[in-house]
């Protein structure tokens, strides 16, 4: 009897152990996978400094790498602000405002197991700023150096302290540093030692090419598999230094799908779980099938940038203000854009720390706009002809032609006769830098190029400061307003964050009062998500945090 009970127990144990063996594969296959269709035609560069603008930073920058400073992406309602990243604190030196001391986060490791420390920071600064450094890579400097225009060098103080030097006092440095991602020097050196090449430069190029295929940063995601132009697979970094941001999903697959209808079809047929920028005319169909459309106001502006050279009709503030009052932005949002825009009343909207308190309220007020135009000498029988250079497509341009035609029609009510000069996107982008005085402007009075408004330099300074006129930067129309210049200077030399933000708010308010641009729309970064996706937060940013996202089986 006892023997038979023992035998029964053995049989049960054997059955259980066998069942557990057979269940192993099913447990292994229980890996959660998030598949995303990107708008990019290629996987953004993976070696630390991504290309393809902020979409690149979103997918291959902030996932695998960290900066000394980072964006807070945790809230859908508050403005996204800069927070500590690999640096825990920073301060400009009291006796020399071109030198900053950054304290580094202890205990952080790269994906290859090496330590993140002051040497790694100096190495990463040198990769884009020090021509003599072996790791100096011209292909990375374009997208990096321009986003931190005043940084010149880094020096190690001790293992967890670095000193950064700027060429002039610049309080924007901590914001700019969100664009410098920390790649692993140890990993790169190992690849450099193995690389083949005729000289050090060739070996360096080969090492970076190898690094791009087997990247190592400190971010919450590690590179697992990379097929150029087709897919990038990332796995979660269990050892990430911020335990609250360890990804909930095991694996994330990024797939380039440049065509909006192809992305939409891939989502609807279940090939992916998430797509960026669904086709606007498919939004109803997507929602009708139970998918979610996520959107939020982005730091992005869709404007007309005015010519302010001698003889320009926009030199009259009444004309600039009239144009801003003549557009029914809500009508554009609800009709043409199917809800996929936020009406712009300036570069920053109320609630943003850099908004300020403008006196001039940008809204739709047709009688006021017509009155201003009449005061400026125009009317139904004397129309003002203006020519605008734009493109038929382009990154961030939303629907440039239909939107410009909408403006053309709306401004006709205010005695404007708008002519559109439509050119290819890359050509428009190049012309933007050349300015209104260049023959490439083709006699235009305004240019329609959208811009990102993540940091003060990109959002305000490069357009409003007189010294930023071409060929220096993007003050396309040669704005020359002493008040703007004074406020820019003051903001850059105010090192208390709160006070600096107040000056920037004053600058933004001044630009609205001056109707410096025709402010039309902010993009909302629409994305369509499978109903299986939980925990997603769409912040008021170009970026998102993939860590809290989970996916139901």
């Amino acid at each position, binding site marked *: 009897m006892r023997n038979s009970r023992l035998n029964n127990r053995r049989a049960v144990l054997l059955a259980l152990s066998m069942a557990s063996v057979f269940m192993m594969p099913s447990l292994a296959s229980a890996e959660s996978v998030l598949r995303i269709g990107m708008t990019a035609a*290629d996987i953004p560069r993976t070696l630390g400094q991504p290309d393809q603008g902020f979409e690149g930073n979103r997918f291959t920058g902030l996932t695998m790498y960290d900066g000394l400073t980072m964006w807070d992406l945790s809230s859908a309602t508050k403005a996204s602000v800069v927070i500590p990243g690999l640096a825990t604190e920073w301060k400009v030196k009291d006796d020399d405002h071109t030198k900053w001391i950054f304290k580094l986060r202890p205990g952080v490791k790269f994906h290859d197991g090496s330590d993140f420390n002051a040497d790694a920071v100096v190495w990463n600064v040198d990769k884009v700023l020090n021509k003599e450094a072996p790791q100096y890579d011209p292909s990375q400097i*374009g997208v990096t150096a321009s986003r931190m225009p005043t940084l010149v060098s880094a020096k190690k103080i001790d293992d967890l302290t670095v000193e950064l030097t700027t060429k002039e006092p610049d309080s924007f440095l901590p914001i700019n540093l969100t664009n410098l991602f920390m790649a692993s020097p140890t990993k790169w050196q190992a690849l450099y030692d193995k690389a083949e090449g005729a000289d050090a430069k060739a070996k360096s190029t080969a090492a970076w090419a190898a690094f*791009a295929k087997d990247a190592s940063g400190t971010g919450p995601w590690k590179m697992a598999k990379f097929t150029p132009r*087709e897919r990038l697979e990332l796995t979660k970094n269990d050892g990430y230094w911020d335990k609250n941001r360890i990804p909930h999903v095991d694996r994330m697959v990024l797939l380039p799908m440049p065509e909006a209808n192809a992305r939409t079809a891939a989502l609807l047929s279940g090939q992916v779980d998430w797509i960026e920028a669904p086709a606007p005319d498919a939004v109803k169909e997507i929602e009708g099938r139970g998918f979610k459309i996520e959107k939020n106001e982005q730091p992005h502006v869709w404007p007309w940038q005015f010519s302010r050279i001698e003889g320009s009709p926009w030199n009259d503030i009444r004309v600039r203000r009239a144009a801003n009052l003549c557009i029914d932005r809500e009508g554009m949002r609800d009709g043409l854009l199917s809800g996929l825009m936020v009406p712009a009343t300036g570069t920053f909207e109320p609630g943003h720390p850099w908004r300020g308190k403008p006196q001039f309220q940008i809204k739709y007020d047709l009688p006021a706009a017509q009155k201003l135009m009449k005061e400026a000498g125009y009317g139904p029988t004397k129309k003002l002809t203006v020519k605008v250079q734009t493109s038929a497509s382009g990154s961030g341009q939303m629907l440039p032609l239909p939107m410009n035609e909408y403006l053309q029609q709306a401004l006709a009510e205010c005695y404007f006769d708008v002519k559109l000069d439509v050119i290819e996107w890359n050509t428009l982008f*190049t012309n933007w830098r050349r300015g209104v005085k260049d023959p490439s402007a083709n006699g235009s009075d305004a240019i329609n190029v959208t811009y990102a408004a993540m940091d003060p330099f990109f959002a305000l300074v490069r357009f409003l400061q007189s010294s930023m006129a071409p060929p220096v930067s993007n003050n396309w129309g040669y704005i020359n307003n002493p008040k703007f210049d004074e406020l820019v200077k003051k903001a850059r030399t105010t090192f208390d964050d709160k006070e600096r933000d107040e000056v920037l708010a004053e600058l933004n308010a001044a630009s609205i009062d001056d109707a410096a641009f025709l402010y039309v729309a902010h993009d909302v970064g629409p994305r369509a998500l499978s109903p299986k996706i939980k925990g997603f937060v769409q912040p008021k940013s170009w970026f998102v945090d993939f860590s809290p996202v989970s996916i139901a089986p």
Partner: protein
Amino acid sequence: MLAYIARRIVYVVPIVLSVALVCFMLVHITPGDPLVAVLPADASQELAAQLRAAYGFDRPLPVQFGLWLWKALHGDLGTSIATGRPVLAEVMRAVSNTVTLAIAAAIIGFSFGLLFGLIAGYFRDTWIDKMATGIAIAGVSVPHYWLGMVLVIVFSVQLNWLPAVGAGPGGSGQWAWDWAHIRFLILPAITTSVIPMGIVTRTVRALTGDILSQDFVEALRAKGLRETGVFGHVIKNAAPTALAVMGLQLGYMLGGSILVETVFSWPGSGLLLNSAIFQRDLPLLQGTILVLALFFVLLNLSVDIAQALIDPRIKRA
């Protein structure tokens, strides 16, 4: 025959050089900055000059062309500005995917094209002819991308039978000729095949009709040759022209279709060109155009030689 082949090969050399010159000039004379992929519009002048020098765009155009051609002759098409990867590897990977698609599309398009063409030619001016011709005209007239989107809506979105995009569950790098991968190929191959199918149908129909009306066919029948024997003669007489047309069509398909490959996110040369154009990646654009043009030239050379082998009159011409 050897002299004919040698003469044809010699003709190819100036064509290849002209192609290289034209594709270099075409991408350089278009307005815009060649460094737009890596140089934001807000970059400083110093940075722009530094990058221009690093990529060699500060040199005179003839020098740039000479250096590029010299490297190309040694199998180096340079490095992509946008990705930093070697152009030749990028192009060859994309071309191999396009070849897969082109062969699948050619099998579908040419088979149906020959079938419809022969039937229409044999039954000229009957309802069968009208039906086959109607299919051919529809094939030539329907826009690629529209048909692709319709197929995706029906077979991927509504019926969920076939995948909408991509080149296999793990990407083209893991391509295998099994059902898991072939199902990704079906919709793009059908979409790509409709135009060649239409053109081959029309060509073969015209050829068959023309040959059947000739005196020698009448003579063959009068001598008591069976209809299958006559059919053999028709095929042999139609083959050189049909082969030339199919070679040309295969060349077009090997060039990749920007529209079809973009609609299906098929990682071929068309999608690569699309990406190179939008990123204004000049080395990649030049390299891709050059390789595709060379393919076209070599394919035409092969077709010329094959024609001469089939029809001895051609090599005497």
